[in-house]
């Protein structure tokens, strides 16, 4: 047998400070309450990070307002573009550093942060930098205006990428931002703040306030905010929608999902199996658009499952910094507990659970890739978002049944179709109530392509020309 020797990426490239303040008005300022950010793969403390209180948030919003009125709002689009291009280039130059830090803080494998996250982050800044001086051609009237100060709250699954999805279009459109990264993954956002300084971005245009739910609440409820953008759970999204109701604030929400990945009997099976694996095990399944429900046509179900199990046995779970790791650590103890609870419910409700033999490290938060077969629409594992490496397998007989099952969920973020028949792809895509429908691929992202949900997966679109709309007064 061909065993791969450890191939760890060096963490020496990134310099982590022992503690971080808040990034307000172009400077790091010390706060009062410090909390620890840990490496979920080892439970080692990486740094202490300030949790901003409402006064800190207020200072950040005022700094953003001042920068909006004095500098960033009046600045011609072509000049804003120069800053964004500069940031994009700095991200590329420092991408190894950012990738290592992302893997340390989040637990995702280095090959993902290196090959997926960071290239997409830079691509988003490049893409929206290009729009900054072309807003009159974006289809929102001859002279669309920015909104003002954007409050942005992002999740822990793609810390830096979600930051890019939020900050790049906001800045391109002429807004200033106050961004709150997730409490378990604040470090790359703070390194991004250093990049803003390095790029000479005017003070106050980007403010980063770290903290947990209370900080987020103070930020979205702040009266000085014109726009709220949130990516995270549907539950928190609802609370935010309630709190901004009746105010002038414009809101976009990108929430949970329970996507159907639909495999027809004429699908290219080997590639479909890759797509299933990528759909649910990419980023440990911490993906809102993960293909967490596999709908496979009865006549090929056995064959697909067998190939899938063979493929899953090859997944390498372990040290996120090893370049050969496919599945890293679960981001936090809380999330691990939730994955365990839902998986146990799956077993208790009678679904059959299977994981490949795999040795999990003793320290840190880990969960083996898991599939449930014999799942029905009524099982919790088929309805609730698990946000972990857990796949529920259901079968269908006819295309109409596939559509019915795929749509029978409160969510509607994404869906996948696997078939060699072009006409069936179009027929299905017309009927699936999901914001993104992938055909013969999955989890494919591009800054030019709009992304967002139907139903309880949220509203508003991020990415592409459409992504500008949420940050313009239209």
């Amino acid at each position: 047998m061909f065993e791969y020797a450890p191939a760890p990426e060096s963490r020496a490239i990134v310099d982590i400070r022992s503690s971080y303040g808040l990034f307000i008005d172009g400077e790091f300022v010390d706060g009062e309450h410090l909390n620890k950010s840990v490496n979920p793969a080892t439970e080692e403390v990486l740094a202490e990070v300030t949790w901003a209180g409402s006064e800190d948030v207020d200072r950040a919003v005022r700094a953003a307002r001042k920068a909006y009125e004095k500098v960033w709002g009046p600045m011609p689009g072509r000049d804003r573009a120069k800053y964004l291009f500069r940031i994009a280039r700095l991200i590329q130059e420092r991408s190894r550093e950012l990738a290592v830090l992302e893997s340390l803080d989040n637990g995702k494998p280095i090959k993902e942060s290196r090959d997926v996250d960071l290239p997409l982050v830079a691509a988003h800044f490049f893409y929206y930098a290009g729009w900054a001086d072309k807003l009159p051609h974006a289809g929102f009237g001859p002279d669309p205006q920015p909104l003002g100060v954007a409050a942005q709250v992002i999740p822990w699954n793609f810390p830096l990428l979600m930051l890019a999805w939020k900050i790049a279009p906001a800045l391109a459109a002429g807004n200033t931002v106050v961004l709150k990264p997730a409490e378990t993954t604040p470090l790359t956002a703070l390194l991004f703040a250093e990049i803003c300084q390095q790029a000479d971005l005017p003070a106050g245009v980007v403010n980063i306030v770290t903290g947990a739910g209370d900080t987020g609440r103070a930020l979205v409820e702040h009266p000085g905010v014109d726009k709220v953008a949130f990516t995270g759970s549907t539950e928190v999204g609802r609370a935010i929608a309630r709190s901004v109701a009746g105010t002038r604030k414009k809101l976009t929400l990108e929430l949970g999902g329970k996507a159907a990945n639909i495999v027809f009997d004429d699908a290219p099976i080997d590639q479909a199996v890759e797509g299933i694996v990528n759909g649910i095990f990419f980023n440990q399944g911490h993906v809102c658009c993960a293909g967490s429900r596999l709908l496979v046509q009865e006549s090929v179900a056995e064959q697909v499952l067998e190939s899938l199990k063979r493929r899953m046995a090859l997944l390498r779970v372990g040290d996120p910094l090893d370049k050969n790791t496919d599945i890293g650590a679960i981001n936090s103890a809380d999330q691990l507990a939730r994955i365990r609870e839902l998986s146990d419910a799956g077993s208790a409700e009678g679904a059959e659970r299977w994981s490949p033999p795999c040795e999990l490290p003793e320290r840190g938060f880990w969960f083996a890739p898991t599939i449930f077969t014999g799942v029905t629409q009524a099982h919790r594992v088929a309805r609730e978002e698990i946000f972990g490496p857990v796949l529920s397998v259901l079968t269908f007989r006819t295309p109409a049944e596939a559509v019915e099952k795929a749509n029978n969920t409160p969510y509607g973020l994404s869906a996948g179709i696997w078939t060699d028949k072009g006409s069936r792809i179009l027929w299905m895509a017309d009927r699936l109530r999901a914001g993104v429908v992938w055909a013969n691929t999955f989890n494919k992202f591009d800054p030019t392509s709009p992304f967002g949900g139907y139903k309880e997966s949220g509203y508003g679109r991020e990415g592409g020309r459409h992504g500008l709309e949420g940050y313009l007064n239209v």
Partner: protein
Amino acid sequence: MTATATSARSDLSGLGRSETALRTFLHGLPGVDQVGAEQRAAQLGTRSIKTTAKAQAIDLAIRMVDLTTLEGADTPGKVRALAAKALRPDPADPSCPHVGAVCVYPAMVPHVAEVLAGSGVHLASVATAFPSGQAPLEVKLADTRAAVAAGADEIDMVINRGAFLSGRFKEVYDEIVATKEACGDAHLKVILETGELATYDNVRRASWLAMLAGGDFIKTSTGKVPVAATLPVTLVMLEAVRDFRDATGRQVGVKPAGGIKTTKDAIKYLVMVNETVGADWLDPDWFRFGASSLLNDLLMQRTKLTTGVYSGPDYFTLD
């Protein structure tokens, strides 16, 4: 086609009797999505093979090399030198393993046979009017018999691409069966010339056709057309041998040939074998590299690993 390992083996031997049965079967194989296959191959190419794993991979790759020379300018002296190199690739280091086989034109077989006799290094010869295959069947079979009679224990044949591409599957099948018979005890490697088959669907069908007709190995290319072995083509062929063994119980080898020049390339192929068909194929009996310049790069990397310093091409023999 991925029948369960426990289910009864399928009897596919009757398929070759009728054009219709062959066509229905080959067109019923699951399709290959080009984007997906290329993406998977590229992903496997990013594996990082270092230190002990690299040393292990290099030695395995050396044992898998079919050291090849297929030039009009080949001389008895040149092929003898090549055969000597096959036996002891690195004269300075006796721990270096010998290669898998030497591969030459039929006329050169007797000269190589003298050198390799009793060594364990196989002697492969291309036959069947290599590389074009554009000769009457009788000539191709005579070519094969002559090579075997002169001492070749492996025959690399080319399929009739014209017949395959125009859908005359039975003609291709019958030629492979006839060549296999002409081989006698010699192993038959069937060259699909994937660069001329154009699509991965065709590669999969040709792979199955060659296996159904009795080929012991399927091989990508002659090395004589612009597109030779690629990672995605090899991936599709590996999936085919895996599925064929699941369906019939018979294991078939795979040989990418042409364009594999560096240790880095070779290791990517080994990773692909490891993660597509597994350890059963990580053996010179089941996986070979058709290559000439690859060996020297493997030797240089091997020297680097054992001595810690880079060597230069001048320290290794050309043939």
